[in-house]
């Protein structure tokens, strides 16, 4: 790892994870000003209604509910299993997929509809070829 990479702050795991100079990281959505459809990541045209240049960035909530999940026991080589792949509906709109953590990977313990929150942590130690670290988002049960 280069000195520069080691000293640099982590990079966002996806472009819609924003890491401001000051303040906490957050997820950013794009909302169509015509039909209200919500997207993740930059775009200029709404694929729901076709409106152009009507999308506005907004801060997605860190609270949501678990829509559905799967417990993944077999994955690609080098990927640790098991993990819970979760689809989460955020309060105020927006649906995000990610790992649900701090819960037993057991269907008896996971309730669809349960309240969850978005937490921001290092990307499981994964680094890119240049040795950069990444900040990722995860979901965990909310009290």
């Amino acid at each position, binding site marked *: 790892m280069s000195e520069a990479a080691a000293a640099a702050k982590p*990079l966002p*795991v*996806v472009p819609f994870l924003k890491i401001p100079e000051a303040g906490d990281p957050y997820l950013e959505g794009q909302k169509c000003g015509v039909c209200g*459809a*919500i*997207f*993740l990541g930059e775009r200029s045209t709404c*694929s*729901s209604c076709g409106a152009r240049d009507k999308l506005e960035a907004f801060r997605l909530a860190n609270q949501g509910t678990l*829509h*559905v*999940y*799967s*417990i*993944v*026991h*077999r*994955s*690609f080589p080098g*990927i*640790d*299993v098991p*993990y819970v*792949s*979760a*689809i989460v*509906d955020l309060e105020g709109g927006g*649906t*995000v*997929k*990610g*790992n649900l953590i701090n819960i037993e990977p057991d*269907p008896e313990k996971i309730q*669809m*509809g349960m309240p969850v929150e978005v937490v921001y942590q290092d*990307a*499981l130690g*994964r*680094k*890119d070829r240049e040795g950069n670290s*990444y900040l*990722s*988002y995860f979901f965990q049960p909310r009290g």
Partner: protein
Amino acid sequence: MSDVYVLGIDMIKFGRFPEKTVPQLGATAALMALDDAGLKIQQMEAVCCGNLGQAGGMVGQRVLQEIGQTGVPVVNCANACATGATAFREAWMSIKAGVYDLVLAVGVEQMGRGLLGGAGGGSGIPKEGLLGSGTMPAVFAEAGMEHSRKYGTSFEQFAKVSVKNHHHSTMNSKAMYQIETPLETVMNAEMIAYPNTKLMCSVNVDGAAAAVLASESKARELGLGRAVKVKASVLTSDPWQERDLVMPDVNSCTRLAAKAAYEMAGLGADDVDLVELHDCFATAEILHYENLGLCGDGEAGKLIDEGQTALGGRVPVNVSGGLLSKGHPLGATGIANIYEVSTHLRGEAGERQVENARIGMTHVIGLGSACAIHLLEKVN
């Protein structure tokens, strides 16, 4: 516009043929379909070929290099798991348009082993297992869990799909497997992505299937003997849905296609005597019972519990063994399921024959997404 008929159709036994090339597999099926029609390659006015793995490799032309380079137009199609059905539909459309009277459609695939799905390429770091899963078993597990969430569908009900389809394939010598898998075996098999165990995931196999399509005038001229009429051919893509950025939606495009197909054919779901649908995972079959209108919303669990979709039931589904046991060679699957339905309509399905079958439906979904539905009718 002319009606379109299938005059000849066949598939190779699905399996693993590493010693063969993709064009060789496609050529074998093409010759079988031509023989079934009693026609020669020189009579084909165009060829539509579906293949995904070598989508840039001019597979259709290379099939003709194996069986007869007649100089006719060849179109190569790639449309994920709807690839074969798309090739069939391209052939159908060219006849509908009055451009040709006889067209050969071929679907072929040689598969690797292992998991399908995005490993999360692109820049940065791998996203699999970090931002959830993009593996196909997990994607379809999540789609199934949506049904569980709404209607309480159980792991056991999903598993019953696999028991049924494996049972069906014991009567199909062209299926990859002919093995009974009792419920406990299915449920206790290695868990891949809950609720899909290994026996609830389709089998990666090599395969090829082909069909000869004809205009009505040509079909009458050649004799309608064993012909099968194409009553509807529909292709849809995924309409916008609020979660579809993170959760591929296999339901909306299927519902859209089913509605259009029933309208085109002037038929309803009650008219359908058998269905070959896209059981890429056991969870998917449950969803499609409702998407195709075989039962009302929320009734799919009951349908599988009561055996209504088993051979001998009200509307047998995947009597071939389905993708779960016959196998799923992506580019061949769409024509192979048209072969299965045609075989029943011709009354030639032997031990697994659906009695008095007059109308059959085929359905495939390519994630991304493409849904193709065909409705077929017995002629004589």
